[in-house]
């Protein structure tokens, strides 16, 4: 077993009293004061996450656009410089190798932000494609780039204080580049709240972290770990790659068909997805909430009532702090039938006991609408 990697912010986490756990080969902060308090801070005020384990791959050159059009299902051509979108790397079967963000830095300059666990494979894929498409330069910037996410209703004010007021003008899924700092500030996140993700060179990460913590303290900013990140993203109905979606799941099955753009040209997985679009798919990811007493967890089995055979494994399950009840996502086999409707009765088996559940629409939690963001 190789030694776990640490992010450049490791010392800051120790200082803040973090408890660490292994994640994608890294020793990451799981919690500081506690998952519930950190979760609440992000929903009500602000929380800050070190997600430097994420991978960053630069793709540049005259053929960069056509390379990414061929590799990802979303329409990169429609992405204006200064904007980002959610997309994926798929197998020929249309299933997820990874989900990712594509940032368009310039006409011929893109940044892919990928999951740590699949970074090496993603990089290989992009590099292999770049061998075919000449005039594309691929660089793995993961090792030199730190990523700090500031999330919550107070995030805009805090981030504006530290990186400049132009940050608070950003629209959702827009970003700005601060060349002098080598920094990219993006209005994106994985919590269901307004928020920012700040990409910064390793050398300046600690200073930025400490400054955010200091300037944000008055507004309730606290460091938050991967524990809260997981409950926050699940409430927001966001998929975790490698857990909810993987090489057995397509975007259509995952309810992410909006990321598949049919009017663009060919891309990896298109044929398989087109078949599913025509003929439907057996497996679907559905959201559910636990009605009875108990908590469904990853690996438990959800069964939809009155639908023989309509069942499957829970891919994510947790107590949802904001909702005050247990929720989850399950991958159910619908056979030739329809996807179970929201409201449909179901049950999950936990330690030999059947617990009543109900199918619900994703997301579980939608933040109250405010101006901006």
């Amino acid at each position, binding site marked *: 077993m190789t030694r776990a990697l640490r992010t450049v912010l490791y010392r800051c986490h120790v200082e803040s009293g973090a408890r660490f756990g292994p994640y994608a080969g890294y020793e990451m902060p799981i*919690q500081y004061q506690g998952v519930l308090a950190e979760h609440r801070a992000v929903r009500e005020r602000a929380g800050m996450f070190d997600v430097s384990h994420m991978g960053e791959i630069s793709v540049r050159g005259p053929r960069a656009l056509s390379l990414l059009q061929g590799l990802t299902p979303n329409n990169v051509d429609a992405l204006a410089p200064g904007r980002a979108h959610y997309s994926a790397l798929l197998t020929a079967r249309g299933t997820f190798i990874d989900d990712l963000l594509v940032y368009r830095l310039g006409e011929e300059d893109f940044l892919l932000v990928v999951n740590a666990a699949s970074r090496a494979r993603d990089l290989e894929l992009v590099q292999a494609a770049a061998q075919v498409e000449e005039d594309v330069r691929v660089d793995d910037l993961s090792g030199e780039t730190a990523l700090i996410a500031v999330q919550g209703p107070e995030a805009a004010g805090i981030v504006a204080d530290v990186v400049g007021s132009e940050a608070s003008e950003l629209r959702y899924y827009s970003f700005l580049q601060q060349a002098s700092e080598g920094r990219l500030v993006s209005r994106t996140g994985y919590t269901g709240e307004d928020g920012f993700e700040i990409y910064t060179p390793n050398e300046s990460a600690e200073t930025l972290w400490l400054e955010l913590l200091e300037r944000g303290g008055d507004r309730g900013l606290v460091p938050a770990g991967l*524990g809260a990140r997981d409950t926050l993203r699940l409430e927001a109905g966001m998929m975790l790659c490698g857990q909810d979606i993987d090489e057995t799941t397509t975007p259509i099955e995952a309810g992410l068909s909006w990321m598949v753009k049919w009017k663009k040209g060919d891309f990896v997985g298109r044929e398989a997805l087109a078949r599913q679009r025509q003929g439907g798919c057996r497996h679907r990811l559905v959201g559910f909430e636990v009605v009875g007493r108990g*908590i469904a967890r990853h690996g438990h089995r959800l069964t939809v009532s009155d639908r023989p055979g309509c069942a499957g494994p829970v891919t994510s399950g947790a107590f949802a702090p904001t909702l005050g009840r247990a929720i989850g996502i399950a991958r159910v086999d619908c056979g030739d039938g329809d996807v179970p409707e929201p409201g449909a009765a179901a049950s999950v088996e936990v330690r030999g006991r059947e617990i009543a559940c109900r199918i619900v629409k994703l997301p579980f939690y939608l933040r109250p609408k405010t101006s901006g963001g």
Partner: protein
Amino acid sequence: MIPDDRLYTEQHEWLKLEDGEAVLGITDFAQQELGDVVFVEMPAAGQAFEAGFEIGAIESVKAVAEIYTPVGGTVKETNSQLEDAPELVNEDPYGEGWLVRLQLSGEGPDDLMTASEYESLLAAG
């Protein structure tokens, strides 16, 4: 401080013996390891258990810990406060956060630790 009026298991449970009955809970170390407790699954009153069997589970936001009884007995009472306030397990593991009261069947307890032995176990990591 680890209370010295009770016994401890290697699974970080405590057992307080009083007049043929035993009260069972988890230790401060256990609740810290688990993190925020959000649900406690308890046995029904009247259910009988042999020593070493699982009698319930404690769920935190991030993990599940099964609870095993180190003694045989019949469930007399469970801590009903935990239904609405599972966080008592975190806040007061040796007091208000107790789990189950058992009527001892006479089986066990064997091999339980005293407070100072348990403290050494924790110190040894």
